[in-house]
């Protein structure tokens, strides 16, 4: 067979010109900074705060913010400023611990369900749905009653155990979706074992979707803790946390002591905002497309 055209040969592709993006571009720097400041304050509060947060100074009940008590005192005479930092430690700790518990349960459950045969997958998902359908508060009340006296760990367990189902659904859906991708097929052709496929191919691809949910879960856990305390199921009054501070604030309504309600709440909201914007950044981190509209 004779061809009349000239062999083209392999034409190399020219190297592209890059534009280096600055490291802080697009990242939620303000949020990380504020969150970092709050975290730091909570962690180091023992070092620089002179006042004992649990000390009830009954002479100075419901004092508005002043020179001596920067944030005022609450209905039992405790200094709110020191309570914020010590309480923050507890609240954040519960938030992270609960999220850790729920994420571990969720990823295990979801991955198992995703890789399982159809009937097992259906069964597991039904179980998760039933679990989800029991109102969270009721479940928390029941588990709390079983576990007995509330402590940081028990509350974390309660919140973690009630909150895993939504992440598990996402993990399972993602694993199902990714199972049939061609690059997974290619990897298996090349000889990749099950765990390599899971670690190198599946996990990085669903990681970002669950990362967002995990971060939101931290947020949810912190709010859950305060809500539980508010409803009376949370930490006892001796352990200071933002939630227990807010649970007392209801009494402050009638006395018009706005600082008891607003200040802890403001800290809570600020922390949640930071966590949320970090979560949003994680969610949209990769897309660089332009709108066609």
């Amino acid at each position, binding site marked *: 067979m004779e061809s009349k055209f000239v062999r083209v040969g392999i034409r190399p592709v020219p190297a592209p010109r890059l534009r280096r993006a600055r490291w802080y571009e697009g990242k939620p720097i303000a949020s990380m900074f504020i969150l970092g400041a709050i975290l730091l304050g909570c962690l180091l509060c023992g070092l620089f705060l002179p006042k004992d947060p649990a000390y009830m100074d009954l002479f100075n009940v419901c004092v508005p913010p002043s020179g001596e008590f920067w944030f005022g005192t609450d209905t039992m005479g405790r200094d709110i400023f020191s309570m914020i930092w010590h309480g923050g430690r507890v609240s954040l700790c519960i938030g992270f611990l609960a999220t850790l518990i729920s994420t571990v349960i969720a990823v295990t459950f979801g991955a198992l369900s995703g890789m399982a045969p159809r009937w097992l997958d259906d069964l597991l998902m039904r179980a998760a749905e039933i679990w989800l359908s029991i109102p969270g508060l009721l479940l928390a009340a029941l588990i709390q009653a079983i576990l007995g006296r509330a402590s940081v760990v028990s509350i974390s367990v309660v919140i973690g155990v009630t909150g895993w189902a939504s992440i598990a659904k996402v993990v399972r859906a993602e694993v199902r979706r990714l199972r049939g991708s061609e690059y997974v097929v290619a990897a298996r052709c090349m000889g990749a074992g099950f765990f390599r496929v899971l670690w190198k191919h599946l996990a990085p691809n669903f990681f970002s979707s669950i990362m967002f949910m995990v971060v939101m879960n931290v947020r949810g856990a912190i709010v*859950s803790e305060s809500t539980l305390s508010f409803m009376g199921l949370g930490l006892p009054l001796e352990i200071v946390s933002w939630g227990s501070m807010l649970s007392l604030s209801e009494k402050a309504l009638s006395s018009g002591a706005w600082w008891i309600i607003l200040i802890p709440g403001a800290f809570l909201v600020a922390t949640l905002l930071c966590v949320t914007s970090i979560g949003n950044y994680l969610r949209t981190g990769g897309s660089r497309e*332009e*709108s066609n509209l």
Partner: protein
Amino acid sequence: MIRRNPWLYYGRKALAFLLSVLVLSAAAFYIARLAPGDPLVSYYGDRVERMRPDERARAEEKLGLNAPIHVQYVRWLRGALQGDFGISYKYKTDVLEVIGGRVGNTLILGGVGFVLIFGLSLGLGLFCAWNEGRWADRIVCRLGTVTSCIPEFWLSLVLILIFAVNLRWLPSGGAYSVGGTGGVGDRALHLILPMTVTVLGHLWYYAYMIRNKLLEEARAEYVLLAKAKGLSRRRVLFKHCLRNVMPAYLSIMAISVPHILGGTYIVETVFSYPGIGTLSYESARYQDYNLLMVLCILSGVVVILFNMIAQIINERIDPRMRDAEIVETTEVTGVGE
């Protein structure tokens, strides 16, 4: 295309539904009874502590609590299938009556809230998609993020502080004024604050979701083609992008019904609004078994039912979804949201 027998399809779904409800009832029954706590307290109040053992035994027998758990369950199930769900220990009346008295309130709060939430979030989402990148969008996004971070109970407290205590414009609690007529105007006044909290608490989540969906649609190739053909921006957004996003949005709406209806308990507690939310909390806390069972089943039924509705909607629209699950719609919440 492979035809599905509709009878078989819906029949199978109905069967799964009933089975799930049954399993749920059994689970709730067992868990409730295994939890520590004394159900007699809700019936007899503080007198329980002073009861002698034989009085106690008689009380337990009267309430049917001395039999082994599975016997109790069968007894309950038999009664339930005939429509008799037992008596609430606390209120000492038929459970269905207790619930019936309050379910209306929750439905109003939740129902109107639902409509408002989805109506407003659609509008907000469209607004943000239209003005994407401009300062209007950015401001709304910032505001939205802030409102979504405010815990519901805190917002309620703050609003009560401002509007009820300081300004005295609005009532601080209840569904209608004590001794009042309970007319529409009065009810509406009492609904304003709880409704605001409910709506604000969920609004941004759905607005953000639909905003993102619309933006994703706007990046599709057909939008570029439509623009090249000369369609106005408004036409493309409303007629094409919105239409393509609506099915997913509908299934999200279906899924979130139980979530919003069930999430009213915090608002109800703070505002002392007599609804099912406070009822479920009380029954869980104080071991009012019969009431708890019915409420659990009710909430379970609503969740499972709407999950199925959403699944059916999805499967009808997009055959690809037959194997997939609705991924983004489950709101990441803890106990308190």
